[in-house]
């Protein structure tokens, strides 16, 4: 792998940047691998990278039906935070946060991780009680957090309407200074490049259409374009398509796939240097380095695989944003899109063994898995290498929906992204 550096940039400038090495190979798949990862989003690529780097398993293929990072990884609003309520999830997301903090160095790829802070606003007394509870829980878990009053919020985001004019005035917020955003494409590409350098085969345009299962154990996959590929272990990391994949393997998951939409404005001058989220009026916003306002909200209520949702969902989102920031009322929106998110009943992921031996699933991240990308990959790699759930993955077994040990982030923290 050609190492990226400031010096390299200067050197390549002399040849007009025409001699850069390809970022990854485009190999023909082998007949057999130690591990096959289905799904080349951020989580699948991170899994392959940590398998190779931490566990020395390099005979790996990542099979992606479209292009690398073209699923939810390319469609999300890139908010990263770790202030979850329950111990199990807080540990998992904080594990990811620590990896984020050194990720650009580790991958030798600038993932543009920017710890600009995340505000979660409260608009009711109950919101504020929940926020205090969550911030206290976070601190006990060693995660940074503060409860702010409207005056303190105003100091951070002067142009937000913190008066009592709005229908739902802002009563306070939780503030995680280490939260922020990262560049979604760079995350996928950085993991892909680093995994490729360690010998991982990245196979694009290769849809998995079935699992090969003998005596209750998975021994490989059938693909649409490249025939059958055998594997000792298979990790399925297919986000919104996971229920369809589980059906191929003959079991059900407690997931529903919903459209989740986002939109960006025309680029404007720097105006917002932090991330603002509100579960109550239901909208969240940040400004990208390019200058566009990046806006998102909740899922469309129906199941959908169409990567698009309904117009009124966007309208509600924008209403919430304009209520918080009247100054944005005349900003024009540029683009809008949708992804398919795999929502889980307790709003926590599934990192799990399955009823089929040697087949593992990492899914259910729903509306909020981008922030977990390095942590998810790290924990899933450990699980695949050992052939059983790692310590951090254990609480996230799919079988928690049988024994009732849910990790109820939904009810408790009202988590959005």
């Amino acid at each position: 792998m050609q190492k990226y550096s400031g010096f390299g940039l200067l050197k390549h400038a002399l040849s007009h940047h025409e001699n850069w090495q390809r970022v990854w190979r485009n190999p023909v798949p082998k007949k057999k691998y130690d591990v096959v990862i289905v799904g080349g989003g951020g989580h699948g690529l991170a899994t392959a990278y940590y398998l190779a780097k931490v566990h020395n398993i390099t005979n790996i293929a990542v099979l992606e039906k479209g292009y690398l990072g073209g699923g939810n990884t390319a469609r999300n609003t890139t908010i990263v935070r770790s202030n979850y309520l329950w111990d199990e999830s807080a540990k998992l997301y904080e594990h990811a946060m620590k990896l984020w903090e050194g990720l650009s160095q580790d991958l030798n790829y600038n993932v543009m991780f920017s710890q600009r802070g995340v505000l979660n606003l409260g608009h009711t007394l109950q919101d504020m009680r929940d926020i205090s509870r969550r911030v206290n829980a976070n601190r006990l878990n060693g995660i940074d957090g503060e409860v702010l009053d409207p005056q303190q919020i105003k100091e951070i985001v002067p142009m937000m309407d913190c008066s009592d004019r709005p229908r739902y005035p802002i009563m306070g917020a939780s503030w995680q200074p280490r939260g922020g955003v990262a560049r979604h494409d760079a995350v996928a590409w950085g993991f892909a490049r680093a995994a490729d350098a360690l010998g991982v085969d990245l196979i694009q345009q290769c849809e998995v259409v079935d699992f090969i299962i003998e005596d209750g154990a998975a021994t490989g996959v059938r693909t649409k374009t490249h025939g059958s590929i055998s594997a000792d272990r298979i990790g399925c990391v297919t986000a919104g398509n996971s229920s369809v994949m589980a059906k191929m393997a003959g079991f059900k998951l407690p997931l529903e796939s919903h459209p989740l939409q986002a939109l960006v404005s025309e680029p404007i001058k720097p105006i917002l240097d932090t991330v603002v989220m509100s579960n109550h009026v239901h909208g969240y916003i940040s400004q990208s380095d390019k200058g566009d306002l990046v806006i998102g909200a909740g899922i469309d209520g129906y199941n959908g695989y169409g990567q698009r949702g309904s117009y009124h969902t966007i309208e509600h989102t924008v209403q919430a944003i304009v209520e918080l920031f009247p100054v944005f009322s005349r900003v024009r929106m540029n683009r809008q899109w949708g992804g398919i998110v795999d929502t889980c009943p307790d709003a926590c992921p599934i990192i799990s063994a399955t009823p089929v031996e040697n087949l593992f699933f990492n899914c259910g991240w729903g509306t909020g898995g981008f922030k977990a990308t390095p942590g998810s990959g790290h924990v899933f790699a450990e699980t695949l290498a050992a052939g059983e759930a790692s310590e951090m993955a254990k609480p996230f077994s799919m079988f928690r929906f049988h024994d009732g040990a849910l990790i109820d982030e939904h009810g408790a923290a009202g988590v959005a992204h």
Partner: protein
Amino acid sequence: MFYIFCPHCEEHREEEEFHAAGQAHIPRPLDPEACSDKEWGEYLFFRDNPRGIHHELWVHAVGCRKFFNITRDTQTYEIKEVYKVGEKPKFTAVSETGADLKSSLKAQESAT
């Protein structure tokens, strides 16, 4: 944006008046106490989540507030039909458990 025919109001209304309430035709176990953890868990949490034909329960939330079913394609979003609770769909898909809809409808009938 869907334009949905409410079979109770007998009118087409905009999607905003409605609320999607998840998968239709889920029979409540007749004797919950007799269920194993697995059976009860599957009843509560495990859902068909097909890419394609799906039977869904909707409620006309800000209209007549009554429930009804829709058969819809989750890939193209085309609404195939609308029918009242208790009626049978004309378009059926094989359910994800392998059991077809007919047997789950049957189970539902005996449950109600």
